[in-house]
C-alpha cells in the first residue's frame, strides 16, 4: 500500500527541486518577520523636522496612531551654524531677519503637522530650536523611545543625495529605533 502523503512529498521534491528554497529566500528579503510584525510598546516619540524634510507622509501619522504614544514631540530644528555664519558675514540685523523668517516658516510647518496629529487624537507638543541639527537630535533621544525623521532632513536644497548624510549619522549614533520617511 502506497503511503499517499509520502508519495506527495517525494513528488514535490522531484518537481520543485531547489527552486522552492530559492524562491523562499528571495521572499524573505521583504516579508516581515514575526518580531517585525509585533507592535512595539512606545511611550514617547520625537518627530524631527526642518525646512528640507518636506511634508510628513500620511503613513507616518497612521503609524503613530498605531503606536499611540503618551507623548509626541515635534521639533523643528534651524541650523544655528548658518545663523552664526550670516551674523558674521552680513551683520546682526540681517541675521535677525533671517532668524525671524526661518521661525515663521517653522511655525507654519509645526501648525500643519500639529493639526494632523490632533486629527489622529495624539497628545503632542511642538518647539522650534536653533541648534546643531545632528547633535541636538542625538542628545534628545535619551528621553524618547522612537525617532521619526525624514530622509531629506539636513539636506542642502540641491538634494544631491537620496538620504541626507546627517540622517545617516543620526541613524548610526542613536540607539533607539528610527522611522525614516
Amino acid at each position: 500500500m502506497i503511503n499517499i502523503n509520502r508519495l506527495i512529498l517525494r513528488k514535490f521534491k522531484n518537481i520543485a527541486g531547489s527552486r522552492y528554497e530559492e524562491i523562499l529566500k528571495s521572499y524573505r528579503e521583504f516579508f516581515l518577520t514575526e518580531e517585525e510584525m509585533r507592535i512595539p510598546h512606545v511611550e514617547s516619540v520625537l518627530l524631527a523636522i526642518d525646512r528640507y524634510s518636506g511634508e510628513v507622509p500620511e503613513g507616518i501619522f497612521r503609524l503613530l496612531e498605531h503606536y499611540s504614544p503618551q507623548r509626541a514631540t515635534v521639533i523643528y530644528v534651524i541650523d544655528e551654524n548658518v545663523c552664526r555664519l550670516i551674523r558674521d558675514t552680513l551683520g546682526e540685523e540681517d541675521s535677525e531677519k533671517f532668524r525671524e523668517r526661518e521661525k515663521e516658516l517653522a511655525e507654519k510647518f509645526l501648525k500643519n503637522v500639529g493639526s494632523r496629529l490632533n486629527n489622529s487624537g495624539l497628545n503632542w507638543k511642538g518647539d522650534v530650536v536653533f541648534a546643531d541639527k545632528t547633535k541636538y537630535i542625538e542628545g534628545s533621544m535619551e528621553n524618547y523611545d522612537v525617532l521619526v525623521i525624514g530622509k531629506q532632513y539636513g539636506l542642502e536644497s540641491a538634494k544631491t543625495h537620496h538620504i541626507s548624510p546627517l540622517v545617516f549619522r543620526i541613524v548610526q549614533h542613536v540607539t533607539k529605533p528610527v522611522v525614516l520617511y
Partner: protein
Amino acid sequence: MQTGELLALSVFAGVYAFIISEKLHRTVAAMLGASIILFLNVVPWDKVYEYLDLDTILLLAGMMVVVNIARESGLFEYIAIKTAKFSKGSPLKVLLLFSVVTAVVSAFLDNVTTVLLLTPMLIYITRQMDVNPVPFLLAEVFASNIGGTATLIGDPPNIMIGSAAELSFNEFIFNMTPIAFIDLFITVGIIYLAFRHKISTHKKREEAIKRSIMTLNEEDAIKDRVLFRKSVLIILAIVVGFFLHDTLGIKPAVIALTGASALLLWSGASPEYVLEKVEWATLFFFGGLFIIVGALVETGFIDQVAQWMTGYIHSETQAILMISWFSAFASAIIDNIPFTATMIPLIKAMGGSLNTYPLWWALSLGACLGGNGTAIGASANVVVVGMAYREGIRITFMEFLKIGLIIMITTVAVGSAIIWLKYVGM
C-alpha cells in the same frame, strides 16, 4: 500479439507503473524505457525524429529560458505583492484576485513556476489575516490548472495537442479560453460556498491587516529594474507572437525560442547560468515518453486500440463525452503528460471514421482539468500541497479529494457541454 507489440506494451506499462508509484524519478523511468525501446530496435533509430515531438520540447525549452531570466528581475514577486495590495486584506478579494492572477499567469507560463512563485505570498497574507490558508491554497491550485487549460502554452498537454494536431494559439483562445473563464468563476464560487465560514476575518482586525499588507512594497521585489522592463517587453512580444504565429506561418516553438534568444541577448544574462536552470529533467521526460508512445504506434498497437474503440463509438457526441470524461478521471490519477502522449496517436488513428477536431478540445479539457481531481493529479497540486506541508499547513489527500472531485466534475461537465454545443448540438 507480436513480439514487438508485447515489448512496447511491457515497457509502456512498466514506465507508467514507475511514474504512478514515484519509485523512480519520472525522467529516469522515461529515459530507461526509451533506451530499452531503442536498444531492442522496436523503434528504428532513423524513425526517432518522427516520434520525438521537437515542437513541444523546444517550445517548453524556450519558455523555460524566458521565465528563468525574468525571474531574476523579481517580476513574479512584484506581481504577487501587487495582487496582495489590491486585495487590501479582504479575504474574499484575496481569494478572487489570487485565483484570477494565478489563472492568467498560468495561461502563459508553466503552472509549477506560477504556483511556486505565488504560494509563499498567499501563505504570508493568510497568516496576516489570521484565516485558514487551505481554501486559498486550493483555489490557487484549481485556478492554475484552469488557467493552463486556456491557451496553447498554458499546460504541457495543450502544447502536445497543439503540436500534434497543428492547432494554432488563436484556435486555443477561441475554443478553450471561454471555457476556462467560466470554469474559473464557478470554481471560486464553489470554494467560497464550501469554505465561507473559514475565510472571514474579524471586522475589528481588518484595518490592522490592511495596514500590514500595505506596508509591503512591490518596488522592493524588483532586483534589477532594467531587466524587469526588458523581461516585461519580451514576454509581451512573445504573447503577441503567439497570437500572430498562424498568420505568419511560424511554429509556436520558433516564437518561444526567438523570444528566449532576444532576452538572452538584450539582458546580457550568462547563458551558462540561464541554461543550467532549464528543467532538463522535464525535457528528457518528454523525449523519453515520445519514444515509448512512438513504439506503440510503430508496432501498430495504437491502431488496433483505435479500431476497437471506433467499433463502440458511433458519433461525435459519444467521442467527446468519452474522451473528456475518461481523460479527466485518468488525469486525476496519473500524470497528464504521459496520458496525453498516449491519447494523441489514438485520436489521430480515429480520424478515419470521425471528425477529430472537437476531440482535441475534449482531450485538452479532460487532461488539463482532470488534474484538479486529486492531490496527485497535477504537478501544481503536488507543489502547493508540498509547500503548505513545509510551512506546517496540512492538506490531506482526502481533504483535497472531497473538493477536488466536485471542482473537476463541474468544470469538465461545463466544458464538455460547451464543446458539444459548439460542434455537435448547434
